[in-house]
């Protein structure tokens, strides 16, 4: 839709075009205002980068890269302080891994059911329920992980489970991201052309074969995108881990122990009133920058994958 095709009617010409004779400045102003609104989102990204980069640069002028990325001791408040980020990263990855182990099978199965098996009526009942799952505040999930899931685990597992542990946080986080995985995967499966299904049925395939051997492979890039987005959600989730996983940096792969994730550190360090100039204050931004880079890369990959599967069948 073109907007501003002001016709070139030179003054004095006898034949006037049917187009507008005078430019409508108001229309132009409105367009500029609307563009400015759209640019707020770009400004947000710029703002994120601007708020992260200078304190991070200052942080690395005081702490070496080698210590930050190579060290295994995270104790920014201790004396002597330790700035090895590994304990935070491994805790983040461990909890994310548990969450994905829960969310991918359950989310994918729900998506297959909703897309291939459910009648329209069951679909309209179950989809809002899944949406509710996505709309529950994460502080509530954290509470549930700490007060309900952890006691159940302590009761069920024969080994010692800490009051704060990665397992409960990971399981609950996995349930939280089921809707993310399910809804995007279902979109991808719905985009698979009906002809592929009909072809498979014509060859004598059963519904299960059609779902698993035709629809899922055909929608694979969309499904992978959903999983990657779920991963990014899990990496960036804060409240569940801050409440249920504990606040002690702990380099371990034992999910029954307390540990601190990157987001957990930012939340606990940032909730105090730190002096701007302190190294501890800058630590928040350094960890935040690492978190942003990680999730940005995953989101970007997910967007690319979604784009690819959309283009295949259109």
């Amino acid at each position: 839709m073109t907007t501003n095709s002001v016709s070139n009617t030179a003054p004095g010409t006898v034949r006037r075009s049917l187009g507008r004779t005078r430019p409508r400045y108001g229309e132009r102003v409105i367009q500029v205002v609307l563009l400015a609104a759209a640019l707020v989102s770009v400004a947000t990204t710029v703002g994120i980068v601007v708020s992260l980069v200078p304190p991070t640069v200052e942080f690395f002028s005081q702490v070496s890269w080698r210590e930050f990325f190579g060290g295994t001791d995270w104790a920014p408040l201790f004396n002597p302080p330790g700035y090895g980020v590994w304990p935070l990263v491994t805790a983040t990855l461990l909890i994310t891994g548990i969450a994905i182990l829960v969310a991918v099978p359950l989310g994918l199965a729900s998506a297959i059911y909703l897309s291939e098996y459910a009648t329209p009526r069951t679909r309209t009942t179950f989809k809002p329920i899944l949406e509710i799952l996505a709309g529950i505040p994460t502080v509530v999930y954290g509470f549930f992980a700490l007060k309900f899931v952890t006691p159940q685990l302590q009761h069920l597992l024969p080994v010692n489970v800490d009051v704060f542990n990665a397992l409960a946080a990971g399981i609950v986080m996995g349930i939280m991201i089921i809707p993310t995985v399910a809804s995007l995967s279902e979109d991808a499966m719905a985009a698979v052309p009906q002809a592929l299904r009909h072809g498979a049925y014509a060859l004598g395939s059963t519904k299960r074969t059609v779902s698993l051997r035709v629809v899922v492979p055909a929608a694979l890039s969309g499904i992978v995108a959903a999983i990657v987005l779920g991963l990014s959600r899990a990496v960036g989730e804060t409240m569940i881990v801050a409440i249920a996983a504990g606040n002690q940096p702990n380099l371990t792969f034992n999910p029954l122990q307390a540990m601190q994730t990157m987001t957990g550190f930012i939340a606990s360090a940032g909730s105090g009133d730190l002096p701007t100039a302190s190294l501890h204050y800058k630590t928040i931004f350094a960890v935040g920058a690492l978190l942003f880079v990680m999730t940005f890369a995953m989101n970007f990959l997910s967007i690319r994958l979604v784009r690819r599967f959309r283009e295949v069948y259109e």
Partner: protein
Amino acid sequence: MTAPAPATTRERAMSRLRGPRLRLGEQAFHVLLLASLAIAVLFLATLLVYVVYQGWPRLDARLWTDFPSIRRPERAGAQSAIFGTLWVISLTALFCLPVGVAAAIYLEEYADPKRWYNRLIEINIQNLAAVPSIVYGILGLGVIARGLGFGPTVITAALTLSLLVLPVVIISAREAIRAVPNSVRLGSLALGATHWQTISRQVLPAAIPGIATGSILALSRAIGEAAPLLLLGAATYVAFNPEGLASAYTVLPIQIYNWISQSRAEFTTLASAAIVVLLVILLAMNSVAILLRNRFQKRW
């Protein structure tokens, strides 16, 4: 489950085609899928029952008539958090809805998707929608609270949450605008209306139910957010309601977080009761959104 004595050859052939063994695998798979979905639903049901059960003793008027108190949990309420939530959410709506809808109009009605900058805006919005909320907290802390000097106030929280939910508002408003058929626009333009007249008098009114639905869902997300506000100074104990934009504040999720961190059992009960209040607000908003969608959804 084989039919007793198939009468015709055709039926016999059919029953051989769907042999009983095959059907068993099929049914097991079907059950497996349903079970996966059921786990999610059961989890949700358990969570709801658990918080109502836990919070039941404190689900009374004290919750909204009294202020938080650390020393006397039996007399503590969440009034300042409820008022703080109202303040922050109203301001968030005030900031992010106009901007979000305007951006959506630009992207749907004006932007040429082939231009690189429009594609950049689009990818940028998609990416922002998935940026962790705590990163917005860092943005609010670095740029709004400290950079602009707004400090730990209601307005800082509202601005930060606006930026946080802006991508969601834009994406849902775009979908609503896209759903208005092109014939409406062409008809209006053919009658001599200008581009903006067409948008403001034809497209937008038709898209409003969709925009409202998306906006309510976005705002309900903002109500439940706690992570960015932890960085923005909402974590402190507040025993008064906000009085203006520059007031200190707390909100329900942060109040809940505070109570969870207390070790005494009374605070767990209080936290559960406050969670019930929060969930009731959110469910009410969600049902309004669903109602709007069902009632005003037009079939063009």
